[in-house]
């Protein structure tokens, strides 16, 4: 139970990064959910849809409704500001990853 909670907490921090990364190309909510599942990235639908809305409010995504099909769909794509944020987050993620690898490898040597 404790391990599971810690794992969920750890993964939660990376969800925004993963979503922003996959939204370099235009996607609607469910197609994005499937794209995440294909990559074994587990994110609940009930978490993803509100997250998309928050990212849009924070100007990281832009959206538009496609009403040409029988079912209307809201498409999201990274905004120029979102691209900047993504670039920054990838850099941070790489640094964290390097630090962690150094830490783990360093500890293994001892």
């Amino acid at each position, binding site marked *: 139970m404790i391990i599971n909670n810690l794992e969920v907490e750890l993964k939660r921090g990376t969800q925004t990064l993963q979503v922003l990364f996959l939204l370099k190309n235009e996607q609607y*909510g469910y197609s994005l959910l499937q794209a995440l599942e294909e990559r074994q990235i587990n994110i*609940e*639908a*009930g978490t993803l*849809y509100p997250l998309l809305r928050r990212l849009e*409010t924070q100007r990281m995504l832009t959206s538009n409704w496609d009403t040409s099909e029988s*079912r*209307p*769909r809201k498409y999201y794509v990274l905004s120029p500001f979102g691209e900047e944020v993504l670039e920054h987050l990838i850099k941070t993620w790489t640094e964290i990853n390097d630090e962690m690898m150094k830490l783990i490898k360093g500890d293994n040597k001892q």
Partner: protein
Amino acid sequence: MNDLIERYIYDVTKRLEESKKKDIENELRANIYDMLGDDLSEAHVVDVLKKLGRPVDLALEYKEKKSYVISPRQYDDYIKVLKIVLIVFIAVTVLSGITSSILEYSGVKLISSLIEEFTDGLFGSIFFGFTIVTVIFWAIDQNTEKQTEFDPRKLPKVPEDQTLKSRRIEGIIEVIMIVIFGSMFVGFLITNHLDVNIQLDEDSFYFKGNLLNKNYTTYLIPVMVVSIASSLFYSAYKIIKTKTSILTFAIYSVIDFISLVAATILTVSMDVFNPAFIEATATASNKTILEITQIGNQIVHGIVIFVWVIFIIEQIVEWIKLTKKQKRN
């Protein structure tokens, strides 16, 4: 099946801000139908809605600003104060219930009166105490939300005795007690009404009318209001600053002293009780009006001495605390 989906969407959106409802409703509907694909069977709809989670949880995810009556940062203090206030309220209600029942009834009537006092009075006072504490904390919460920058230099000093309650909690409890008992006392002075039925052996004494002399209450009410207001400001200062200074305590002491002197002069120089009440009491107790007046004066003078003693003790304790603190700093 549409019915289940619409009920789900309604249950989510009814918890959201009006301005966002329509947008989220459309988004949610589109997402649900995408998740359903071509299979619109009831089992599949249920499955998809379960994946989205309980409406209340989904609505919480959609809310950008979490709303609380008492925010988590105030919650611990809130619970501490609530416990103390409720204990005091319950104690006061139980004592006053027992006293008034014993004075008014005997035998079976006494037992039924006690039960009635406890059920009605206790629920009423618990509800009242809970409301007052919640409203005061809500007001503090609204005020502290505006403080933006955290300044470590303003942190309160670690008390020498760790078991002492913080000044802030002390201040909050004082405010609550002053508001409740102060308003009750002023309310009593304003209404100045007594409807009493006292059982003395075989005789029953009934009086309905003003307890106190109207001229006396007219002068005493503003004095009490000033005194209560100064106590309130002093306690509020403790909550905001989480400390007290010699200057603020000196101002509070001077105002309180002047009010107390004024109240004493009024009480000693004027007729405190309504003459009709004195007369009725004399008739009921087979005593002369003079005797009853003397007993009344003794009681009133006793109360005045008691209040002065409390005032002096409070002053000595607080001045010792403040001067010790001053030396330490």
